[in-house]
């Protein structure tokens, strides 16, 4: 599913504009599987699937597979519909550079929820 990020994000200028200044690689952890997502000027340049050896990333968003499955459902159920909803229920962890995550919070939320379509 994460592999579809480039097509759902790059084709939607209403999402890309919120990440226009973003040039970062971040990690998404879906259970045991890790992905590195590289963003260039709001476009998803690439999605790489792990395992990784000695790779750098700016921030990581980690949750169990079942948690992400709830999140990606369309429509999602109450309490499973937002990254911070998952944070509050203790199902999700944010690690690494929190400043970058908070600076691009709206972009990241819009990009990830675009996978619900």
């Amino acid at each position, binding site marked *: 599913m994460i592999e579809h990020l480039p097509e759902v994000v790059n084709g939607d200028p209403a999402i890309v504009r919120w990440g226009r200044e973003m040039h970062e690689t971040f990690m998404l952890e879906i259970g045991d599987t890790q992905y590195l997502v590289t963003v260039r000027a709001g476009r998803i340049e690439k999605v790489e699937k792990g395992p990784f050896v000695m790779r750098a990333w700016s921030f990581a968003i980690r949750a169990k597979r079942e948690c992400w499955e709830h999140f990606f459902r369309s429509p999602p159920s109450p309490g499973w519909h*937002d990254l911070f909803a998952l944070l509050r229920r203790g199902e999700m962890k944010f690690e690494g550079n929190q*400043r970058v995550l908070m600076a691009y919070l709206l*972009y990241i939320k819009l990009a990830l*929820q675009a996978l619900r379509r």
Partner: protein
Amino acid sequence: MIEPIVGRYAHIDNHRIYYEEAGAGIPLLCLHTAGSDGRQWRAVLNDAEILKHYRVVAFDMPWHGKSSPPKGWQGQDYRLTTESYTTMIMTVAKALELERPVVMGCSIGGRIVLNLALKHARELRALIGLQSAAYVERYYDASWLDHAEVHGGRACGGLAYGLMSPLSPEEHKWETVWHYMQGGPGVFSGDLHFYQVEGDIRARIGAIDTKVCPLYMLTGEYDYSASPRDTELAAAKIPGAKVTIMKGLGHFPMSEHPEAFLGYLRPVLDEIRSR
């Protein structure tokens, strides 16, 4: 089309306060959420049915919307407290000559109505708490909302966005986000000091007497900040509190999905009026 809403400024306790009102009858004072302003109440202020029986008033708290921050604001951190918030509401009600008003607040407003129920029940006709919880623990670092290296408008907007229901209309969700993007630096986080740190009212709410002043608690099911469970936990300690869980709504019911919210609010206002 010209709306029935009229906006004015009042000078109250050294603050220049902006407020809007419409309608005539029982005063209904509306309190906006943390980091936003009175525009959240635009649908209530425009509802012909409500305006027949209620004088609806929504003010922007000092530092918010079109209300000014106090003189010397540039040298201080803004922090809302139970005491300052309560005093502000009662002072505004008095200055605008709202006699025994109904007070309706959302989020921080939903919290403070619980304190109003404890401290000012006899001066109020009824209380309506939207997204009302007695306490919300700090589950994220709110200092990022006021940081030189993070755009405050974008971060506050990003936070508010997720608190809404995925089922609410896009137009109203983005209007709600826009209000958040317009907040001054440190204002949202200053309000959250009350919401997540200072304003824990769990130990006191058992003393609320709903026979003196009825209390209605309406919570959107998609809210994870003041969740339906948080509201039910609070209500369980308050005999007579009337709880409604609003299907398909999130943390900003009056602003994110006005039509659905009005469907829940009108019967409550009818009941208050018929008492």
